[in-house]
């Protein structure tokens, strides 16, 4: 083993969406950081769909941005179609989504990494962790180099023992065109980690020159496009449409006829796939009554003819793929540039992590992204950011950062993972968040900017823009509460329109705005000064006023839970000998080992009575 003479604070293994955020966060927080990738031409590569955001995922991107991460800025700089989903629903479930120019996305991120102070970017396959006294102390590579690091962040994606399936053919690979990572997961298993197997898949990439777009329905983005990052003022890049197509009965027949050569149905694939992202053969088999399935043909970039047909991933053999894609109207002559495939990979059950993403077994070792059983670029980036932050905090000798379930989707995700573990690829949904109305895209900065600034990730300029926004919001809220609509002075058409003629007492602007039928624009008819405020401020004030009742209700729920969330359970706590709990509850707690009472309460089957007993036992122990 050749020892590299430079020692690092943080070594990040893997330069996907998790690894990039982890390395940038650590370096920006002042730690000397090494980022290792198996292939430097694949940094921040979008291995599956060329898009960022979507329901709940858009929320995560905004949170990453508020904390000082890079994903939001990167998609703003390279996005070719921006849309806000759920515009007709309330603000909490509106979500941003953007198509990325895949190559630009990766190149810009690589450029940011290359210009980041304190950060070295190197190509190497990590084959083993280097431990000292049972604590992570560096990594060893295929080329027999040992890099020393005080902390190590593993973001291995689909690479550990990656196995690619196309029909009954399979071969090792971390992604189509890349080598797998061999050795690392065996070592993790030897160290006592519970290593499992997951599966995911991706559709074929189609040649746009062979698609008849005239027969497909285009889908355009919003105009003007709305950026992800709180720091981006506007999007200037030309926007490109997606196209909607549908499968038909003949497509389904082709799928069914190829099932005997499906690795999934032949039982060759052992890994568990994501339910929310089923292959087309799964959809056809599970929903036989559905006569068509929708797909969006998403452009992979401005300078390429490659298209990504969303929702049509498959692991069927290539001849079935040819017939299948060509059965779709508009795709009759389509040429496949890259075949669809499924990939199996190793992950480590995240139940073995603390909420800081540090492993419980090996100190100073952090896991983020698909190694934790998640799927999705945004989920990976969110964890990568937190792992990078916490590795840096460890190097500084400071307490780690754990975001609460009431603070961020990132907090909900990590709590779900470390509390319950996962057996299938975990994706974020807004329905996973019990305080959904508090976790909106629009207020991600209000929730997280301060934390990002405190730890040194948010730059001064961004932070002062934020404090200015906060001041304006507070002043406007105060003004709305104080300013009253007086009958004598009011515009009579306004009173008539909103049925206010018979009102007895003066009514405040805040009360007016609370009414579902009165918007800020309408309020401006009484007093145009409010329209001078920046859009983001008005949006925020309007949401806070209109949804006050619901927001207060959720805030009250948060307050009730806060004691439980902060009540810590020592890792060594002996549940098995505890009296007062049923055997089932004891066994569950022993297996899940929650960090806090709040976590314990979210384990299925743990009753309020059991929590009461546990809380007393904890107090007793504390007193002793």
């Amino acid at each position, binding site marked *: 083993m050749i020892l590299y003479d430079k020692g690092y604070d943080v070594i990040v293994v893997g330069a996907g969406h998790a690894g990039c955020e982890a390395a940038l966060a650590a370096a920006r927080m002042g730690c000397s950081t090494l980022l290792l990738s198996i292939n430097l031409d694949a940094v921040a590569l979008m291995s599956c769909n060329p898009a960022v955001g*979507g*329901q709940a995922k858009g929320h995560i991107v905004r949170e990453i941005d508020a904390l000082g991460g890079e994903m939001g800025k990167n998609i703003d700089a390279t996005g070719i179609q921006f849309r806000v989903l759920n515009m007709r629903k309330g603000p909490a479930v509106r979500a941003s989504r953007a198509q990325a120019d895949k190559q630009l996305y990766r190149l810009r991120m690589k450029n940011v990494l290359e210009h980041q102070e304190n950060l070295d970017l190197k190509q190497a396959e990590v084959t083993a962790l280097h431990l000292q006294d049972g604590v992570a102390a560096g990594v060893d590579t295929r080329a027999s180099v040992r890099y020393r690091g005080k902390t190590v962040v593993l973001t291995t994606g689909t690479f550990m023992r990656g196995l690619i399936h196309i029909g009954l053919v399979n071969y090792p690979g971390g992604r189509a065109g890349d080598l797998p990572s061999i050795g690392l997961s065996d070592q993790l298993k030897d160290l006592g980690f519970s290593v499992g197997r997951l599966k995911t898949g991706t559709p074929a990439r189609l040649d746009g020159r062979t698609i008849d777009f005239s027969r497909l329905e285009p889908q355009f983005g919003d105009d003007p496009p709305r950026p992800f990052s709180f720091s981006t003022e506007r999007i200037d890049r030309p926007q490109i449409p997606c196209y909607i197509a549908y499968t038909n009965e003949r497509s389904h027949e082709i799928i069914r006829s190829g099932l005997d050569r499906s690795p999934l149905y032949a039982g060759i694939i052992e890994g568990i796939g994501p339910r929310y992202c089923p292959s087309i053969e799964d959809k056809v088999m599970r929903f036989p009554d559905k006569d068509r399935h929708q797909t969006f043909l998403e452009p992979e970039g401005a300078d390429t003819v490659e298209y990504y047909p969303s929702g049509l991933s498959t692991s069927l053999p290539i001849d079935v793929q040819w017939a299948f894609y060509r059965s779709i109207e508009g795709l009759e002559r389509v040429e496949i540039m890259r075949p669809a495939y499924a990939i199996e990979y190793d992950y480590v059950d995240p139940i073995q992590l603390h909420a800081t993403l540090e492993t419980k077994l090996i100190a100073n070792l952090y896991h983020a992204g698909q190694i934790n059983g998640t799927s999705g670029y945004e989920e990976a980036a969110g964890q990568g950011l937190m792992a990078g932050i916490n590795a840096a905090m460890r190097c500084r000798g400071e307490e780690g950062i754990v975001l609460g379930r009431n603070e961020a989707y990132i907090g909900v995700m990590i709590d779900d993972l470390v509390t319950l573990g996962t057996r299938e690829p975990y994706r974020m949904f807004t*329905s996973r968040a019990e305080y959904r109305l508090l976790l909106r895209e629009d207020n991600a900065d209000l929730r997280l900017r301060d934390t990002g600034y405190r730890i040194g990730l948010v730059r001064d300029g961004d932070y002062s823009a934020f404090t200015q926004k906060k001041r304006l919001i507070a002043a406007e809220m105060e003004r709305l509460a104080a300013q009253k609509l007086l009958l004598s002075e009011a515009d009579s058409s306004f009173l008539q329109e909103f049925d206010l003629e018979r009102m007895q007492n003066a009514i405040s602007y805040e009360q007016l705005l609370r009414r579902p039928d009165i918007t800020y624009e309408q309020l401006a008819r009484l007093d145009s000064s409010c329209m001078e405020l920046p859009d983001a401020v008005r949006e925020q004030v309007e949401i806070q006023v209109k949804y006050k009742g619901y927001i207060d209700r959720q805030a009250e729920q948060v307050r009730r839970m806060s004691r439980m969330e902060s009540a810590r359970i020592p890792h060594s706590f002996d549940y098995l000998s505890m009296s007062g709990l049923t055997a089932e509850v004891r066994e569950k707690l022993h297996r899940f080992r929650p960090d806090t009472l709040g976590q314990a309460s979210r384990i299925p089957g743990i*009753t309020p009575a059991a929590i*009461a007993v546990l809380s007393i036992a904890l107090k007793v122990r504390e007193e002793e």
Partner: protein
Amino acid sequence: MYRADTIAAISTPQGEGGIGIIRVSGQESLSILQRLFRSIPNGGFQSHRFYYGEILPPDSAAVLDEVMVVYMRSPRSFTREDVVEIQCHGGTIILQQILQLVLDCGARLADPGEFTRRAFLNGRIDLVQAESIIDLIRAKTEASLAMAHSQRDGSLSAKLHDVQGSLRQLLALIEAYVDFPDEDLGDQDNSLLRSTYDLAATKVRQLLAGYQEGKVLREGISVLIAGKPNVGKSSLLNALLKEKRAIVTSIPGTTRDLIEEVVNIRGLPLKLLDTAGICQSDDPVEQEGIRLARERIPSADLVLFLLDSSRPYDSDDAVVYEALQGRNFLLVLNKSDLPAAIDLPDSLISHQNVPVSTFSGDGLEGLKETIANLFLHGRLRDNRDLTLLSKARHRDALQRVEHALLSFSSALQVGVSSELLAIDIREALDAIGQITGETTTDDILDLIFGQFCIGK
């Protein structure tokens, strides 16, 4: 302080007593008292002073009871929180009504042992005492678990799972459209939401309405004594009350009006109704009493069909029996001290009967035991305290479910956005989860993925 919300419970033993005490602990205690008490002393309540006054609902002038109240300011109280104690007249019904008012004002029903637990957590009592609370809670937890298991089939928990199932289905229907806006799911079907809601709401209402023990707590069990004239109905009432309340003579038909008394039998509050004797009669006054008696039969939880075992079964007895068709009744054969002359008709021979003598008092204990068993099915007798507590918790939770569902219904009517509708359903599911210990998120996702074809 360990926990900030305000809790309340009846802190005197269940059953009849001269006075009963409702204890309220937490920072809202005083403000709750202020909303329910008349008249609030000038200068407000001082700590550790007794005040005399009346309890009445905030929005009504109907006085519930005369009371003595005391306010103990934190930390000089048992829990070290602000504590209010309301001393009212004993009796389950009054206590329950006042407790309900306190809960309506924002307090939460205390968990078993929760006052003691808070006292410990706030450093008021020591470790040894705390250990014994753990034992206490364990006992209750295990017993209630056992109860839950015994009830699994056809009873409460099965019904709760039923409601839970409907609510999860409802939530899945809503969440699918919130979380998958870009999927090809078809239009959201509001009439399906409405019908799924109706199903769940009806089940909850049935549970709340038909909840026997819950009803017992609120109103007492009504037990009607019926029989032809002069079989000893009033004597039986008096014997059960151990005092002479009804006018007792040997002239048949003395009891013209209905007489109602509450008596505590094995911890159950029984509302006893003595009625005029039912027979064929031409006397208009007597007829009026008979009409009243007949009218009351359907609303009674149990009828004691009283027969005189020293006389033969006759046509007047048959008239009574006919009035009892389809009702829940128990045969009580009075005058067991005299030689038996009765010869029960075939239809009554196999019916459950209890021989008593209101004259000698023989058999009265057996009668009480039988009544209590009928209502408690024998299985709850030894855990009465626990039963009442846990049942009240269930009712508390179910009322929260009902409340959330009402809110959902009106929100659906107004056309509120889906993610806000989901809040009410989640609140309802959480309330049920308080009883069943089950959480929600993953089940909902299972349901969504099972019903909708989702995936990119």
